C-alpha cells in the first residue's frame, strides 16, 4: 500500500517536474528582463538614485519657492567716516565796520594774549572788552567795530553766509547764556548751547566745534550737530541718533590727539548681495557667489545636466545606430564610406574643438539658452562614431549568423529582419554603451561648464556651480558650494553606470533565471 503510494507520488512528482508549465511560471520577455534587473541590487540602487535625482531636478525646481536666478540680499552694517570735528582754538575776527582792518586785528591778537584792555592803531585807541569766554568786542567808545571769537556761527547749509552783524549778535546772546536778539528787524532766540532758532525753527548754531562732512553730498543737520555737541561736551564715545526721517544709526567718536580731530563714524546698515551665506532655514544649502539659493540652483542645474546628457545620447545613439546599422547591414562601399567617416571623427581632437566652438559662441554672443542647444548638438555629433562602430560590428557578426539566413529562407521582409532580429540583438550593447556615455556626457558637459564654455550664467548646471570654487579660500571655507554639486554629479554618473550594467545583465537571456 505504502509502496504504491510512493510510486504514485514519484510518478506525480515526475510528471510535475516534466510539466514545466505548472512548475515554472512563464514570464513575458519584458517581465523577465525586469525581474532580472530588479534582482540586481547594485542596479536597483542606481535606479533609486536616478529616480531621486530626476525628482530632485525636475520636480524640485517646481516646488522650490525661489527662481533659478533669484538674487538674495542681506543688510550689512558699514562703519563709515561720517563727519570730522575740530575744536576751534584760533580767534577769528568779525569786521563790524570797515574801520576794523588787518592792523587792528593784529593788535587785537596781541591784546588778547597780553590781556591788555586797549589797543592802539592809526593813532586811535579802542577798548577790548571781554564779553565772555571766547568773545572779545573791540569798541570805539560805545560802538563795536569788530570782534574776536572762538565760537563759530554756522548754518545747516554751509553755503549760507551770515552777516557779521548777525554773527556778533548771536555770539553775544550765546555767550550771555542765551536769550533773544534782533538783527535787521528779525527776532532770533539763542539758547545756552548755542542753538539759534528763528520763530521756533532751527536756524544756526554757535559752536566752538567745526563739523565737516566726510562724505560729499551729506548735509549735516543742526539736530545732529546739536546732538553731537552735546555728546562731545559730556565726553561720551558712542551715541545713537535718530534723524527726522526716522533713520537710526550708531555713531562713535574717536579722538585723534595728533590732529586734534574727532572723527565720527556712522554705522550704516546697507543692502548687499547675500553671497556665500551658510546653510540656514531660508537657504538650506546657503547661497552662492551671486547670492542665489544654492539648493534651487542645484535643482535647475541637475535638470540641465540630465537633459543635456539625455539629448546628447539620443542624438549620438540615433546617428550611431542608423549609420552603423546601414554600414553593417549593407556592407560594401557604404560600409567603407561610413567607417572612413567614423575614422575621421575619431581623429578629431574633440576637447580642443569643443573649446574652440565654445569660444566662438562667446565671440558671437550666443544667447545662453540657445547655447545649451548648440552644446547638445556639438556633443551629440561628436559622440556617435563609437556607437556606430559598435553597432556595425555587432550587425556584421549577426548578419552572418545562421538565424539571419533562416529569416531570409523564410522570406521575411528586410525591415523586419533588421528591426526584429538584428536590432534586438544589439540592444543590450546599445543600452550599456548609451548609459555609460550618459554618465560620461554629463561629466563632459560639467567639465565644459566648469571651464566656462558650456552652460552659461544665469543658467545653472552642476559644472558651473562648481565653477564658483575659483580659489582655495572658497574651497576650504564654503563647502556647501561645491560638495553638493560634486556629490550629485558623482552619484548620477555612478548610478548610470550601475543601471547600465544591470540592464546589460538583465537583457542577456543566457543569464540564469
Amino acid at each position: 500500500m505504502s509502496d504504491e503510494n510512493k510510486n504514485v507520488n514519484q510518478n506525480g512528482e515526475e510528471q510535475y517536474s516534466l510539466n514545466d508549465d505548472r512548475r515554472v511560471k512563464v514570464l513575458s520577455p519584458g517581465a523577465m528582463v525586469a525581474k532580472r534587473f530588479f534582482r540586481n541590487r547594485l542596479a536597483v540602487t542606481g535606479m533609486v538614485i536616478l529616480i531621486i535625482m530626476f525628482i530632485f531636478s525636475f520636480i524640485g525646481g517646481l516646488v522650490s519657492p525661489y527662481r533659478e536666478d533669484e538674487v538674495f540680499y542681506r543688510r550689512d552694517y558699514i562703519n563709515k567716516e561720517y563727519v570730522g570735528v575740530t575744536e576751534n582754538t584760533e580767534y577769528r575776527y568779525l569786521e563790524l565796520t570797515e574801520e576794523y582792518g588787518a592792523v587792528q586785528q593784529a593788535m587785537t591778537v596781541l591784546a588778547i594774549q597780553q590781556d591788555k584792555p586797549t589797543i592802539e592803531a592809526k593813532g586811535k585807541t579802542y577798548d577790548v572788552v571781554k564779553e565772555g569766554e571766547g568773545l572779545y568786542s573791540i569798541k570805539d567808545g560805545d560802538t563795536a567795530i569788530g570782534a574776536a571769537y572762538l565760537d563759530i556761527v554756522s548754518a545747516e547749509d554751509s553755503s549760507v553766509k551770515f552777516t557779521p552783524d548777525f554773527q556778533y549778535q548771536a555770539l553775544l546772546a550765546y555767550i550771555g547764556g542765551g536769550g533773544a536778539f534782533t538783527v535787521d528787524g528779525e527776532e532770533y532766540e539763542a539758547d545756552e548751547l548755542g542753538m539759534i532758532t528763528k520763530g521756533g525753527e532751527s536756524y544756526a548754531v554757535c559752536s566752538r566745534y567745526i563739523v565737516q562732512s566726510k562724505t560729499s553730498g551729506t548735509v549735516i543737520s543742526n539736530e545732529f550737530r546739536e546732538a553731537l555737541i552735546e555728546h562731545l561736551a559730556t565726553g561720551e564715545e558712542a551715541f545713537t541718533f535718530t534723524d527726522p526721517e526716522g533713520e537710526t544709526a550708531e555713531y562713535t567718536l574717536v579722538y585723534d590727539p595728533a590732529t586734534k580731530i574727532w572723527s565720527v563714524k556712522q554705522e550704516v546698515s546697507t543692502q548687499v548681495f547675500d553671497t556665500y551665506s551658510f546653510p540656514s532655514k531660508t537657504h538650506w544649502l546657503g547661497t552662492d557667489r551671486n547670492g542665489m539659493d544654492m539648493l534651487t540652483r542645484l535643482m535647475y542645474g541637475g535638470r540641465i545636466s540630465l537633459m543635456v546628457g539625455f539629448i546628447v545620447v539620443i542624438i549620438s545613439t540615433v546617428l550611431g545606430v542608423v549609420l552603423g546599422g546601414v554600414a553593417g547591414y549593407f556592407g560594401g562601399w557604404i560600409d567603407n564610406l561610413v567607417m572612413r567617416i567614423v575614422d575621421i571623427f575619431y581623429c578629431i581632437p574633440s576637447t580642443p574643438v569643443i573649446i574652440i566652438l565654445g569660444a566662438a559662441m562667446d565671440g558671437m554672443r550666443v544667447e545662453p539658452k540657445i547655447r545649451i542647444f548648440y552644446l547638445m548638438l556639438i556633443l551629440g555629433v561628436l559622440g556617435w562614431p563609437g556607437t556606430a562602430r559598435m553597432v556595425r560590428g555587432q550587425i556584421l557578426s549577426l548578419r552572418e549568423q545562421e538565424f539571419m539566413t533562416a529569416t531570409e529562407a523564410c522570406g521575411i521582409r528586410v525591415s523586419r529582419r533588421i528591426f526584429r532580429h538584428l536590432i534586438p540583438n544589439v540592444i543590450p550593447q546599445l543600452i550599456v554603451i548609451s548609459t555609460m556615455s550618459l554618465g560620461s556626457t554629463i561629466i563632459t558637459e560639467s567639465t565644459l561648464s566648469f571651464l566656462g564654455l558650456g552652460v552659461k550664467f544665469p543658467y545653472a548646471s552642476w559644472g558651473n556651480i562648481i565653477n564658483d570654487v575659483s580659489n582655495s579660500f572658497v574651497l576650504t571655507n564654503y563647502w556647501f558650494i561645491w560638495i553638493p554639486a560634486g556629490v550629485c554629479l558623482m552619484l548620477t554618473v555612478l548610478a548610470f553606470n550601475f543601471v547600465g550594467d544591470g540592464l546589460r545583465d538583465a537583457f542577456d537571456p543566457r543569464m540564469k533565471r
Partner: protein
Amino acid sequence: MGVNKGIADGVGRAHGASTPEELKYQTEKREERLKKGLQPAGGTGTAPVMASSDPNEPLVYDPQYILMVKNLKKYFPIKGGMMSHVVGQVKAVDGVTFNLKRGTTMGLVGESGCGKTTTGRTILRLSGEKTGGQVLFNGQEVYDLSPKEMRSMRTKMQIIFQDPFSSLSPRLPVGEIIGEAVREHNLVQKSEFNAYIDQVMDNCGLQPFHKDRYPHEFSGGQRQRICIARALALNPEFVVCDEPVSALDVSIQAQIINLLKELQEKYSLTYLFISHDLSVVEHISDTVGVMYLGNLVEYGATEDIFRNPLHPYTKALFSAIPIPDPKAKMNRIVLEGSIPSPANPPSGCKFHTRCKYCTERCKKEAPVQREVEPGHYVVCHLFDK
C-alpha cells in the same frame, strides 16, 4: 564492366546483402520505394533520370520532378591586392546536375568542404547569385524571380540548418520564431494562428508551453525540433536538410531522423538531405549523390550506390563506414593526400590526383556523366564504353 567489378570488390563485402538482416532491410527499402511510386533500384526502370548531359542545353520541365538542377555553379571570389580586386575564385559548386522527384529524399554526401552545403544553399538562393546553371523549382527558374516573388516562393522551399544553436534568433521566444514567417506570409487566419502553431509544434514533438521559452532554454535535440517546426510551419514542399543531425548525439539523431521521415510521409515532403554520415543517408534517402570538389561524381538510387559503388571516390568513401563487428576486417581504401583546393582544382578529372586508377586521359580530359546502370550515373573515364 570488368573493371567495374574489380573496383566494386572492396566495398561489396561490407555492403553486399550477405546477412538475412540486410536482405530484410533491402526488401523493406524496396517496398518503401514502391510505395513512393519509384522504380526499384537496379532494375530496368528509369529511377532518377538525369537531364541531358549537354551543359548548354536548357532544362525542359518534367512535372514529376519538384527540383531540377542543371550544371549549377557557384564560385566565390577571392579578393586580394591593394584595391581588393578579384584574384581568383573558389569553385564551391562547379557544375552539379540532378533531378529530384516529388516526395523522395535525396542524400548528398561527400567529405568536408566538397560543396554540399553550398549546393543546398545555392538551390535555395541563399548565397547570393549563382555563377551559372539552372535551378528549376516546380518548373520555375528560382533565380529569375523578383525579390517579391522570391519571398512568396520561400514558403515552398525551406531549410533546416546544421547548428541548432546559431540558427535560432536568441532574443525571440520559440513561438515567435516558428510563427513569424507564418504571420509574414499570412498563411493562416489570425484567429487560427495559435492553434496552428500548437499543431505544428505538436507534430514536431514540442509542447505548447514551449512557445514562450527562449531558444537557450532548450537542449540541442529540442532546438533542432524547433528548427524543423519553423521550416514546416510554412507548409513547404521541399526542404533542404543541411546536416540536421550532425550536431546531435546518436540517440537524438535517431529521433530527429525518424521525425523527419514521419513528417515526410505525413506531408509528402521532398528532402535534399545533406550529410557526411553515410549510414544516416542510407537510412533516409531514396537516391544518393556523391560530391567531390564541387562536382557530383556519382548519383543513383540508394541501394545501387551502396550495393555497387562505381566511382573510385565513392568506393573510398564507403569503405570508411565502420562495421559494427570487431572481428570483421575492414578493407579501407585510404586516399592519398588531401582534398585539393577548390580555388585551384586539378585539371581533367578533379579526382585524378588521388585516384589509384588514374590514367593520362584523366589528367587532361574532364569526364562526363554516364548512365552505367539504369538510373545510376557516374562521372568517370573508367566507365567509358
